[in-house]
């Protein structure tokens, strides 16, 4: 599904963010990406989203070398790899429904598809009754669920979550994890960068630990492994 082959990323010729990363992620995996700040987690995600190009090596997504995709074709890659951020990034002047529909409108989905998909994903994240509310009327956890609904509305095969629980209290964080796990069970590969020790320890999923740009641990049913 996702394969990193000898991938290195160096910023400004001296700042080595990732060094010779070799990694394989299978379809349907749930992966925690852990490591101290500056370990290379963000760079890893940026490379996957093709926001940055690796200095060396190749990255394959569904057998396609994404380092060889032209900038013009990048949008089509992003329809298959969607992303959820720590800060939700919802449009304040649109309702929950409109925020999710927006993701479909901009890739020119038909209104019939939109009318079918949006209620469905709202149901999946448990927000069917909040469709007409605006983001400022929602709690943090609800906002993150909206942003997850938006990320999956176009049926991506990979969902990247960049510290999705970073702004939430532990209880709400668990709600988010349930939603992510549910999405993962439907077959979507989930890659989640996180600092949440208890979540990683409890979930017992594959853990990839980065430090100073290198993979220092890749463990199935792993634990967080750091004392925060």
């Amino acid at each position, binding site marked *: 599904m996702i394969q990193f082959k000898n991938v290195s990323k160096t910023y400004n010729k001296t700042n080595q963010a990732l060094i010779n990363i070799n990694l394989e992620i299978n379809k349907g995996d749930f992966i925690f990406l852990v490591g101290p700040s500056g370990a290379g987690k963000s760079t890893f995600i940026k490379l996957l989203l093709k926001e940055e190009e690796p200095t060396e090596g190749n990255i394959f997504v569904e057998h396609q070398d994404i380092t060889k995709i032209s*900038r013009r074709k990048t949008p*089509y890659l*992003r329809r298959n790899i*969607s992303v959820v951020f720590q800060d939700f*990034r919802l449009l304040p002047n649109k309702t929950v429904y409109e925020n999710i529909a927006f*993701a479909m409108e901009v890739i020119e989905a038909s209104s019939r598809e939109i009318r079918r998909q949006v209620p469905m994903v709202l149901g999946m994240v448990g927000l069917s009754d909040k469709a007409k509310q605006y983001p400022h009327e929602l709690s943090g956890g609800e906002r993150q669920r909206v942003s997850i609904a938006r990320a999956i509305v*176009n049926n991506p095969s990979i969902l990247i979550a960049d510290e999705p629980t970073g702004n939430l209290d532990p209880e709400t964080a668990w709600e988010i994890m349930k939603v992510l796990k549910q999405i993962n069970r439907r077959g979507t590969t989930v890659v989640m960068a996180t600092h949440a020790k208890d979540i990683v320890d409890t979930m017992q999923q594959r853990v990839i630990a980065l430090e100073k740009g290198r993979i220092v641990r890749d463990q199935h049913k792993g634990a967080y492994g750091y004392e925060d």
Partner: protein
Amino acid sequence: MKIRTINYMIKQGFIGIWRNRGMSIASISSVAASLAVLGVIITIVLNINNLSYIAQMQFDTIQVYLEDELTVEEISTLGQDITAIPGVQYVEYESKEDALNKMKEQWGEQGHLLDVLEDNTLPNSYVIHVENIEVSDDVVKELNNFAGIEEVKYHKDIVDNMLRIANFIRAIGLGLILILILVAMFIIANTIKLTLNARKQEINIMKYVGATNWFIRWPFFIEGMVLGLIGAVIALIFVHYGYQYTFDLLTTRFYVMLSVYVVSVEEMMSKTIPVFTVLGAGVGALGSIVSLRKHLRV
């Protein structure tokens, strides 16, 4: 592209214009002002061109006024001699009476005014048609050696001067226009930048959910082009009424026959409408490109 997408883009374009009303007005004014100046320059250049074209048509001939005392034989010998000059195609004799009739014709409705003239003081003349306007200088030099000629009327220098003036105005005008258009473009680019800033968040999301680059860019193009086109329309209205007014002034108040020489309002508009439309939309599109290149990395 789907109709809904096109609707979306046009709507976003207009929302952008409305959101930054102040800057939009500044952009439109600047385009309108630049094009209005261009309109004035086009007016002048077109008219001088027209005038010199008419002049060239009339003045690819050399008219020699003959002395009144010449006899019929002398006139005809002179005619043959002139025809023999190299470069002369043929000559036409124009008698005093012919000249008067021609004048009446040119004056049109006011021609009857000439009836009060008691004495026809117009000279007999030969109208010399030369092969081309370049040889006329040599022909004139030859003519000066002939006897019986009162005056050689020869307008190549006038035509040359007019063309020189037209070229000069065109050159100065082009320079001026280039600067004005650059300014207009800069102002549009800044307007677009404001819209870009207002929509930063939206664009960021669009990128992450996989909207194509063109999907993201189009609304800004539309915004720029609409700004440019509105400016063009305002400039066209200005040029139309301004020129109409000047045209009426020139043709009715001043000289009798001037309407022959002045380019009509319709012809003027038929030249300016396509030029302004293309330039207006072009300046707008360029302004967007400048802004998008600088501020929108998709």
